[in-house]
């Protein structure tokens, strides 16, 4: 009886020790994971994700309270990379990417939008018509709300010769 109790106690404590050691040695240290994520994030602390800068965003990602799609300037490529790093599924419900466009007939050149854009995608001098450079716009939408004449809209990208690709063959049961 006592022998059995002893055996179990010893066994239990040994295994417990082993487990805690394993946890220590085999765990991906969350610091390292956080660092990897910081590498991926743009690192410019624009705050568009709603967290205090990229560091805050990385913490939320490690803690699992934020989705891999949190960073608007990062776009789909970053979302994919983050999902892969975190081993999480990516919700790809979004349609074609939307980009900002300025209705030139409404733009009064107030220059509010350009000050906010994190990628300097909006160009134009004060009192001049502004334009959005589609190559630089990430579609984050920050500029849309500040425009006093509502001439900024997010629109689906038009396919170009370079971006066009063949559709997936539609086949039933193949």
């Amino acid at each position: 009886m006592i022998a059995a109790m002893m055996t179990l106690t010893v066994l239990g404590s040994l295994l417990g020790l082993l487990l805690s050691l394993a946890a220590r040695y085999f765990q991906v240290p969350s610091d390292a994971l956080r660092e990897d994520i910081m590498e991926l994030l743009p690192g410019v602390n624009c705050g568009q994700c709603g967290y205090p800068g990229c560091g805050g965003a990385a913490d939320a990602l490690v803690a699992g309270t934020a989705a891999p799609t949190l960073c608007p300037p990062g776009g789909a490529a970053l979302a994919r990379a983050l999902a892969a790093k975190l081993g999480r599924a990516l919700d790809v419900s979004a349609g074609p990417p939307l980009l900002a466009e300025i209705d030139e007939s409404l733009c009064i050149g107030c220059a509010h939008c350009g000050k906010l854009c994190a990628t300097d995608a909006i160009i134009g001098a004060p009192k001049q018509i502004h334009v959005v450079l589609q190559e630089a716009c990430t579609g984050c939408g920050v500029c849309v709300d500040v425009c006093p004449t509502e001439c900024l809209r997010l629109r689906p990208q038009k396919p170009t010769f370079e971006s066009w690709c063949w559709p997936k063959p539609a086949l039933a049961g193949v």
Partner: protein
Amino acid sequence: MRLHDFRGGVHPPSRKHLSAGRPIESLPLPSRLHIPLQQHAGAPALPVVTVGQQVGKGELLAREQGVTSAPLHAPSSGRIAAIGEFTAPHASGLPLPTIILDTDGEERWAEREPPADPFALSPEEVAHRVGAAGIVGMGGANFPAAVKLSKARQAGVHTLVINGAECEPYVTCDDQLMRERAGEIADGIAIMLHALQAPHAVVAIENNKPEAVEAMSDACRHDARIEVLSLPSRYPAGSAKQLIQLLTGLETPAGGRGTDTGLLVHNVGTAYAAHRALRHDRPLISRIVTVSGGAVPEPRNLEVPIGALAADLLAYCGGVSDERARLLMGGPMMGQPLPGPQVPVIKGTNGILALTPDEIGEAVEPSPCIRCGRCVDACPMGLLPLELSKRARGEDWEGIQALGLNDCMSCGSCAYVCPSHIPLPQYFAYARGMLAAQRREEQKARRTRELMEQRQARFERQERAKAEAAAQRRAAKKPRTAVLEADED
């Protein structure tokens, strides 16, 4: 030369009799020509003409941009009506920047200065003139010919292979060119050999074109460097990699260039264009196009100015007799489905086909893969088309690359033999598009990061400048107060 063999391949019905053997006819000059700025691999050409300008035939319209690019010349004399956008001869139906030329019907040539003796020119100069004439690969690859010539000379290529295999069904433009203009082609080959400084050339022709083989043998008899070879007819013998394998037994390594094997492949049409450029100083402004298919009443080979619309060619051949017909640019195996007949002929256009649903086999619905393995036997690149298409269906982009998607040359052999009629190459095209989109996204993400960092740096600079300015103001104030204080003293 002893012939080797290549893996796989198929024997689709050739249907070449529809257009073969008919003499080349010239298409009546259309009143309007549409010349896309991008008709070649590489960077688009840059227009050097303005709207309203009168141009002579052969005058430069747009010059090349960068090393891999090609200039464009006026296919006829007339007036530049517009420089705008026009539907590209491409399945997307999207427009490309295009020069639109209204012809005046005079066919007035701009001044020409042919060299007295092309063989007195240096090899570099010959290659340069080939480039300046806007010559690109005329078998459909559209790669600037001068770039290929210069690179191959530097790589020490020993054999120039002139590709007259023309393995695509229906298409007979190279066949007819060889039958009628063998002497000019032979001269073009000699010029290209000079540009390459190579000792040997082989003209490779499928044995289903005995007339072309005979004409070329006759024309090349006087030149011991040129050998004319008749190949077994099996699709895709005319693809550069398979042709090299047939001639040497060597496989072009994945991602490697054909010149690594010491061979350089050029199309017969390219040799003909080189002859015209070096003997007559005529740029590449027209080409032979096969107009054929079950829905074309009078199939023909036409000599066509670049920029003529497919509709012009079809109208000359009796129109399209079946409104369900599918229009293709190129052959039925690798050709480009056209969005409509209102698209221009470009330098690489070898055929305009109007195929009836029966000819395409469209009527048959695809059914599930039965894993019969026929596609594997047919693939000349030794791929597993059934597995590739499975990955594409499952959107497994890493898997499909690991299985060798990049080696697939879209020859369509796999789909041709598939008993389930699965459109295998369409899956591969879809996968390529998705992979390209991913690459673009990643590039954009990198760019975004750069832009954001630049902006950050700018803010910091501004802050620093402000702080410095403030410090300076403070510093500037100090002495004055000191002076004041001194005054007060």
